């Protein structure tokens, strides 16, 4: 068997796929970097790209440029980058783990749990940004835990997890609706803005936490990518290949929920990014692509959406509105093709 698998044709095919994935991921990284720099260039005062880069790494000598780049634009750009990476990675892990391209954290209750807690903090206790972020994070973690426990019956099936997630999501959304109808108008507006999600509002504390979490979690996620591929083959095959199925699954779910939690804490539940990043990355990189590519696509989407929301429209809108407008038609198309291929349920 080993001999046939290692036949030259197979090997060359594998090398080609791997090369394509590496090239595509590199190109994605370059695109994201360009968008990142572009975000810091444009605005009321144009800053040339070289000055932006010099100033961002503390080599610039013009205090005016330093102020604009480092204090005004870098936080937004870094938030968009971090949130996009986190959502992209979390989304693709959820999709692979639950075996359904539609099972992104947006729909299976994690984001709505975060929303319910954050909105409660905004309206009921009039909390500041830090408390709102902390409650969003705890909301995401708690909701995911509840869904996991409720879906547990001799193990987790992706099918039960998705359905129970949708039920819990409806529950959380009715609580959000209630809280929003309770508060005064100003708070309700603030809560609605938060629910749509926007990258321009993050405090430096939350941003640092998100970036720190990313630095820690991305390497772990890359290590867990191998067991994740085994899980995709089905539980029984994965077990036969020597993978500790349930342990790996819990670890992967926990990682992605933490990522979604931090991202939501920083920017609110920006819809559709987690959903569309994975499939787009897959299309770009081919079958050899991994979760890093999905993260980069997520970052590209959020950075792009932020650029459109801030600069291309007459009135600036929350980022989540733009991702919603990009994501919606894609989602319909995805639903249609995925179901036609019979992978939807």
């Amino acid at each position: 068997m080993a001999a046939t698998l290692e036949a030259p044709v197979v090997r060359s095919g594998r090398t080609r796929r791997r090369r394509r994935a590496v090239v595509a991921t590199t190109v994605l990284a370059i695109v994201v970097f360009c968008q990142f720099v572009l975000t810091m260039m444009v605005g009321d005062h144009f800053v040339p790209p070289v000055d932006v880069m010099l100033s961002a790494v503390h080599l610039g000598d013009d205090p005016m440029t330093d102020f604009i780049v480092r204090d005004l634009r870098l936080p937004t750009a870094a938030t968009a980058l971090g949130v996009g990476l986190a959502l992209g990675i979390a989304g693709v892990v959820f999709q692979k783990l639950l075996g359904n391209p539609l099972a992104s954290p947006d729909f299976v209750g994690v984001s709505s749990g975060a929303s319910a807690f954050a909105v409660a903090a905004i309206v009921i206790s009039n909390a500041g940004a830090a408390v709102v972020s902390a409650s969003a994070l705890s909301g995401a973690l708690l909701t995911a835990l509840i869904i996991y426990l409720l879906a547990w019956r001799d193990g987790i099936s992706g099918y039960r997890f998705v359905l129970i997630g949708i039920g819990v999501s409806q529950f959380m959304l009715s609580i959000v609706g209630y809280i929003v109808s309770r508060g005064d108008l100003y708070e309700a507006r603030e809560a609605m803005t938060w629910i749509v999600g926007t990258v321009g509002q993050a405090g430096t504390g939350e941003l640092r936490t998100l970036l720190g979490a990313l630095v820690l979690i991305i390497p772990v996620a890359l290590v867990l990518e191998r067991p994740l591929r085994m899980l995709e083959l089905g539980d029984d095959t994965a077990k036969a290949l020597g993978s500790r199925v349930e342990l790996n699954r819990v670890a992967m779910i926990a990682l992605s929920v933490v990522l979604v939690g931090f991202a939501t804490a920083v920017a609110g539940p920006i819809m559709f990014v987690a959903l569309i990043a994975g499939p787009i990355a897959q299309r770009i990189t081919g079958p050899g692509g991994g979760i890093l590519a999905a993260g980069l696509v997520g970052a590209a989407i959020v950075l792009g959406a932020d650029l459109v929301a801030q600069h291309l429209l007459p009135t600036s809108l929350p980022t989540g509105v733009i991702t919603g407008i990009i994501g919606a038609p894609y989602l319909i198309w995805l639903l249609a093709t995925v179901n036609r291929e019979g992978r939807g349920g």
Partner: protein
Amino acid sequence: MSLTTRPEAAIEQRPRHRSRAALATGFLVLVGVLAVVCFFSITMGARGVGLSTIWKAFDDYDPSVASETVIRELRVPRTLIGLFAGAALGLSGTILQGVTRNPLADPGIMGINAGAAAFIVFGIMVVGAQSASTYVWFAFAGAGAATVTVYGIASLGREGATPVKLALAGAAVTAILTSATTAIVMTNVAALNELRFWQVGSLAGRYFTVFWQTVPFLAVGIVAALCAGRALNGLALGEDLALALGQRVRRTRIVLFATVAVLCGAATAACGPIVFLGLVVPHVARMLCGPDYRWILAYSLLLTPTVLLVADIIGRVAVSPGELQVGVVLGVIGAPFFVLLVRYRNLSEL
């Protein structure tokens, strides 16, 4: 059959066929229960009123007596809307579960109520529709569009509309509609203020105007739905058998989906988007009266308004003198039921 049985056991415990007399007695009991609930719905609340006041409010109305005004202007229209909208949601849930042969089909989960809600917001904000009788047409269009989209998407592929596909398609379409609605509403503070009360789903503040504007559509939809029993029984046998029995399956489906769109659209126009009600009650009705859709429809007709009005009363009493919207109460009660359904029921059963 009990909900707590494991799937293996459930196969053996097929729903028993009950005698017609037993079913009719059950029906009468439910009529009685509903009448009692209606009475409480009129009497209970921040201002308690007695039977004599109700009598006086209609026999010898004195506008200067606050209790009588409360009954005539607030409680009675509220109860009537609850009756009609509840019946509409229950029947549409039953029809959806029958047509799609899917136990998780529900106007809320499938995004139909969200479709109606989004189109209503669009109608009010962009086209400038003012009264419920105008925007109810937007609600029909929205409910219809959402039904067709969600069911169409979910039934692509070889296994047809499985519960997971249907629920995910519904969640996805709801998400799209919500972000579109929010984008429209964010630009206008007054609209936001209106929407945040309306989108929860509530019977409060629904006066006779709303009732008279929506009741013709609700009544037509309810009558049409009650005639659907035979067709649903045919569809329950499976498409091939229904065809063999001479049913025009395609046309039946279209008519039934149109009925659902009218019911959900009008109910949403009357009291806002309400989830879980259309999911839960048909299952209870099926547990009570077995698999015959003619009886399930009749039982849902009575049970759903009962549940809706009880939830409304709970909302009024729980945080008195304030009020918990009925949509919130149902969301909180309905979610555990949904989880139980997913966990313990063999979902390919319908």
